[in-house]
């Protein structure tokens, strides 16, 4: 956990609502795990007041002493809007890496058959980092199911392709791939027993959790909660689990789907 002023190396608008920001931080790049997040101070004044959490989208740590991290974000409110105005060369006050990321080969078991990544909308953000880790460091075959409202909201297809993942797409309006929800694609995946890693809107995660529970599949979900501290101090991001309240920021944001008590 590092708190520092970090330089914006690059900031690209992918579409008016999606932005990609590259940040210079050898220290965070060195320690970051897929699924972990950054807690970013949006303004040095009191509004927007709280920090905003963003998953680590990609990490580059080519040379010793160098390192870059990327976030991919959607403009949904005042904080992200303000963030989208920050320019190359400016500095951001960042706390991270925070939380527990995806466990690869959880409980000591090695994954042999490969992994299934399911991303909905902006939820793909942490999955690119994870995919790279799985393919490059673990030499595992990865299938990615990508879901979006429409082709315009489809993110990172190229990134996953370059990494060598097999990609299946679903859009709600049918403008690309399967016409329907990404969860419809679940039965089409083989082998059906690969461990699942997923991030996306709550209803999607819940549907996946339900499906995987039925088939006793290992499934890790990356969840969101409104956060104040990001480090477990405020107890603001409480999540109902079978072991009582856990904290999205400290115990998560990645949880086993089966330990989460899903809301209606």
């Amino acid at each position: 956990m590092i708190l520092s002023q970090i330089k914006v190396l690059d900031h690209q608008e992918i579409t008016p609502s999606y932005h990609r920001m590259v940040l210079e931080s050898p220290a965070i790049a060195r320690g970051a795990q897929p699924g972990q997040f950054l807690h970013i101070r949006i303004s040095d004044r009191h509004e927007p007041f709280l920090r905003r959490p963003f998953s680590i989208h990609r990490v580059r740590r080519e040379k010793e002493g160098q390192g870059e991290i990327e976030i991919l974000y959607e403009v949904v409110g005042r904080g992200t809007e303000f963030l989208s105005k920050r320019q190359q060369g400016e500095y951001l006050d960042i706390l991270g890496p925070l939380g527990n990321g995806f466990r690869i080969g959880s409980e000591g078991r090695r994954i042999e058959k490969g992994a299934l990544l399911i991303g909905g909308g902006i939820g793909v953000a942490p999955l690119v980092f994870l995919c790279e880790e799985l393919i490059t460091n673990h030499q595992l075959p990865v299938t990615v199911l990508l879901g979006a409202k429409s082709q315009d909201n489809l993110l990172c297809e190229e990134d996953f392709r370059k990494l060598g993942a097999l990609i299946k797409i679903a859009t709600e309006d049918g403008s690309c791939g399967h016409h329907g929800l990404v969860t419809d694609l679940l039965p089409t995946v083989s082998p059906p027993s690969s461990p699942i890693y997923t991030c996306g809107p709550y209803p999607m995660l819940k549907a996946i959790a339900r499906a995987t529970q039925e088939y006793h599949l290992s499934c890790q979900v990356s969840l969101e909660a409104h956060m104040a501290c990001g480090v477990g101090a405020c107890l603001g991001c409480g999540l109902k689990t079978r072991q009582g309240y856990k904290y999205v920021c400290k115990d998560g944001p990645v949880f086993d789907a089966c330990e989460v008590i899903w809301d209606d």
Partner: protein
Amino acid sequence: MIKPNLEANIGGLRMKNPVMVASGTFGYGEEYGDLVDLNRLGAVVVKGITLEPKEGCPPPRIVETSCGMLNAVGLENVGVKAFIKERLPHLRGFDVPIIVNINGKDAKEYGVLAKILDGVEGISGLEVNISCPNVKAGGIYFGQDQAATYEVVTRVREVTNLPLIVKLTPNVTDITLIAKEAARAGADGLSLINTILGMAIDIHTRRPKLANITGGLSGPAIKPIALRMVWQVAQVVDLPIVGQGGIMTAEDAIEFILAGAKAIAVGTATFVNPKASIEIIEGIEEYLLREGIEDINALRM
């Protein structure tokens, strides 16, 4: 010029500087471990403790507001036994007074809690929270009523010689009346203010944004109110005050000291800037140097 003296004394509790971290905003002192050197703080007030473990409110528990936030954590905590066994040992490793924030269902339970904590190694003082807005039984009720305040503080006073700081709620017509009762019942100090009851509504779902409907407002939004209450109480009660409510910077802290506080607590600011408390200590020292004041206790309006 020589370094100014920052030492503060809250009813027998001696601190190297007047800057505490506020209850509920610094966990049990471990969470910010990498970033904040506890040894530099005036005191650490730990998250509110109850007799039994407490589950707290369902999520969502926090909402951002203009220059502030609402929380309805609902005093979730591990209970006093687990606190002593599992959390206190870590805190004992530091050279900083630990103040335990206690919360009872009734006056008797406050007394029981205080008795359990009395004499436990590593505890320097108690903060008697009669002001949590997010628990139904007990909580806010005590701090809104003069007689209840008197009774709770009396019960605690009977069983402990630890420095006793009573934490007041701002959700009252006249905070000085409550402050006077706490003093009369034997408090060694007063802590104010706790959060102000507030609410936020999602206009799309048309539901309250907090599962608990209402929550406690904290942060810079409430600073003018907190400052006014500290000033009011300081006019009429002769107890040291721990000022809090929206302190973000050293300047804010100094305003509270000028208003009559002997010490201050940094709460919500830590979420925004984990190093806020340390920067505030440094900022107060710089201010005193700049103004040529040798002892913070001489700083007055």
